[in-house]
């Protein structure tokens, strides 16, 4: 396959080719054309592989071409990363929007599962049991047992009140 380097025969030819490539790199950078910059970087890399013989002068040209190719490529990368970072704030706001929708949908699912009603009934049942327990202890229990049952009853009633408050939408 023919390449742009095939007809170059001597040092002067390689020097001219490198000048041409560096000028193209500068032009692409000035236009901020990422695709053109990467295309030139690829040509500069090819220059290094094609240039010969490996005399000191040619090796020096290769070094220039390598540095230029790397610089141009990394500039393209850096600019792209800057643009990606620049869009981050907008993505954060989308995340917030979605989280809000999710919270509402989860609430709807919980309501379909009758979660609040289940919790209220559980709390009621627990409170009734606590009252029953207290009744028994009042008949023939010790003071310590009575204290424990009262504590249990208080806890049950507080839980029930909290559940009812939450169900009615009042702050706890």
């Amino acid at each position, binding site marked *: 396959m023919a390449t742009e380097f095939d007809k170059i025969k001597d040092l002067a030819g390689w020097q001219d080719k490198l000048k041409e490539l560096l000028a193209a790199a500068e032009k692409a950078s000035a236009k901020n054309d*990422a695709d053109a910059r*990467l295309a030139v*970087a*690829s040509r*500069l*890399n090819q220059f*290094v*592989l094609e*240039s*010969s*013989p*490996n005399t000191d002068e*040619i*090796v020096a040209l*290769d*070094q220039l071409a*390598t540095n230029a*190719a*790397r610089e141009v*490529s*990394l*500039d*393209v*990368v*850096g*600019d*792209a*990363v*800057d*643009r*990606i*970072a620049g*869009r*981050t704030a*907008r*993505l*954060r706001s*989308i*995340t917030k*929007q*979605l*989280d*809000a*929708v*999710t919270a*509402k*949908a*989860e609430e*709807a*699912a*919980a309501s*379909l*599962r*009758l979660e609040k009603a*289940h919790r209220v*009934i559980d709390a*009621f*049942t627990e409170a*009734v049991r606590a009252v*029953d327990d207290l009744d028994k202890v009042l008949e023939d229990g010790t003071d310590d047992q009575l204290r424990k049952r009262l504590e249990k009853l208080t806890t049950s009633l507080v839980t029930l009140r909290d559940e009812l408050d939450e169900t009615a939408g009042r702050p706890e």
Partner: protein
Amino acid sequence: MAGRFPVLILVLVLTTGCAALPDVSPFATASRQLAGAVKASGTAISEDLHATPELEAKAKAFDNAWAVRNDLMRAVVAYSDSLVGIVKASGDSREAARSLAEKVGGLAQAVGVIQPGAGPAVEVATDTAAFVWAQIALARAAASLEEALKAAQPAIERLTIIKSDSKDLVLVVRGLSEAQRSELNATYNEAIGYRKDLAARRAKLRAKFGTLTDAEATELKRIDDFMAPPNAEVQKYDELKAKIDTREKANLQLIAATRDAMEQWAAAHREVAIALENRRPVSTESLTEAAVELRDLVKRIREL
């Protein structure tokens, strides 16, 4: 009063439409695959950025920016799961109502509202309540699902920002690969040049075959020996270059597939909303295919 129940149930069934909700689970599966692909492409690019000393600051900036993308995908997955949650809760509503009714019955008995022996009547009431609640739940689930889909749609439309990200990710991958090739060329330039010079000399001598002087014939023989070390070096170069090429190709494929899957995902979201509105099934076949392709590409990237 008892005679009104069947009428009430019939009215409920007719007004709720009694249609099943769309199956949104493929949508949730695709969301997970999408989140995995976004994470995998970010990780692969971050690794390459951190491996380039000149880009250390950019690598950190990229990591911070990509963490926000990963968090967004976490929100996308949670949102999709919440849609599945609504559909599932609607399906489980009968059981939830039955269990609640049983609890209420237990409580009523404990406080003495229901006399022992009223079992069969309570059971009938429980079954009826569970059935009625299931119909109400279906209607409420459809409304909640519709509401969630509508509320999320503007955010989903804005996800097209990811498309712009894809364009820049392509540039990052191509730029990094080109920079890696520059470095590789610089490392192996001497060996490649030496081999090229020897090959040129050998071709020249071979062209003179039959008219070679003794010195030239000896030189030709020695060139073959001289070429062994640069040949080995060039082979190493070829292997490393192939690695760069393969990684670049795999990364570009993953970016393209993620962008396409994101588009299909957004389209599927619209489709679910329309299907729900028209009470018809959702076709998620292409979305599932995209999810499978993404899963395979992520696997390949991880293996590189």
